[in-house]
C-alpha cells in the first residue's frame, strides 16, 4: 500500500530555517491540554487544534503544546494549564476555541493572565 510521503521537503526546510528552531531554543511556555475521556468528549481536541493552527499562523517556535490525562474535574472540561518559564502554572477551565485564542494572545504572548477563565494559579502540576 502507498505510504504517505512528506514531499516538498526543501520548501519546508527553508520555511523552518527562516525561524528559530524549536529544539535548539529553550521553550518559553508550555501549554498542557487535558485529554482524559471527559476532556475529549467536551471538545479538548478542538482546543488543541485551534492552538496548533494559531501557533502555526503566528510562527511561534518557543511554545510547547502537550497533553495530559484526566484532571478529575469532569464538569469544568475542556481545561488547559499554562506554564510560563519562571512563573507558577495557571489552570484554565470551561475552554472554547475563542477563549484559548485569547489565552494565547494575552497570556502566553503578552504575559497577562485572564482571570475570568482561571480556576487556580500555582496549584500542583498536572503530571
Amino acid at each position, binding site marked *: *500500500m*502507498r*505510504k*504517505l*510521503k*512528506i*514531499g*516538498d*521537503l526543501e520548501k*519546508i*526546510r527553508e*520555511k*523552518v530555517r527562516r*525561524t528559530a*528552531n*524549536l*529544539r535548539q531554543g529553550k521553550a518559553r511556555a508550555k501549554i498542557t*491540554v487535558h*485529554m*482524559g*475521556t*471527559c476532556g*475529549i*468528549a467536551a471538545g479538548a*481536541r478542538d482546543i*488543541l*487544534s485551534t492552538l*496548533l493552527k494559531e*501557533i*502555526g499562523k503566528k*510562527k*511561534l*517556535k518557543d511554545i510547547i*503544546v*502537550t*497533553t495530559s*490525562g*484526566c*484532571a*478529575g474535574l*469532569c464538569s469544568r472540561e475542556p481545561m488547559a494549564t499554562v506554564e510560563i518559564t519562571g512563573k507558577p502554572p495557571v489552570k484554565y477551565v470551561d475552554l472554547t476555541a475563542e477563549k484559548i485564542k485569547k489565552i494565547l494572545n494575552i497570556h502566553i504572548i503578552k504575559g497577562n493572565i485572564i482571570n475570568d477563565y482561571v480556576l487556580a494559579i500555582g496549584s500542583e502540576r498536572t503530571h
Partner: protein
Amino acid sequence: MRDLSLHVLDIVENSIAAGAKNIKIIINENIEKDVLTLTIQDNGKGIDKKTLDKVIDPFYSTKKIRRIGLGLSMLAQATKEADGSFNIESQKGKGTAITATFVYSHIDRKPIGDMAETLITLVATQGLNVDFIYEHHKNSHGFIFDTKSIKQELKDLPLNDPEVINHLRRNLNEELEKL
C-alpha cells in the same frame, strides 16, 4: 463522543498512559461486506488476565485521581449501538490490541469524523516520544501514515515544528479525500 475519531484519540491516550512507544491504528471500511473495523494496537505495559474482564466496566479504572474509567466502555457501547462487536486482547508486558467493528450502513453507526485532526493532535504532542502508524483502507484503496519513516525523511527537522505539522495536516487531508 461525537464520532469515531474522538474515540480513537481517547483509546490512544490509554496506550500512551500505558507507556506505549509504538501505536498502530487501522481503519478498514469494507462497504461490500458492510463492516467498519477499527483496530488499535500498542506495545504498552499490557493488562493481566484477571483485570482484562473488568476494563470495560465503567467503574473500573487504575487512574488515581478519579476512579471511573469511561473510555473503553463508551467505545464498547458505540459498537453495540451499531450491531457490531468489541474485543480487547492484552498480554502483560507485551501490549494491548483493541478491535471494534460496526455495521457500516447502520443508522446508529457513528461517523468516522476527522481522523486527520486526531492524528495531528497525537503527532504534534507525542510524536517525538511515540511512533504512530495509521492505515486506512477503503475497499481496495488505502494509505499508510508512518511517523518513523516520516522522521527519516525529515532528518534534522523536528516532527513537531509548526511548519511540519501544517504540512502533515494538509497531506493527511488530501489522502483521506482521495479514498
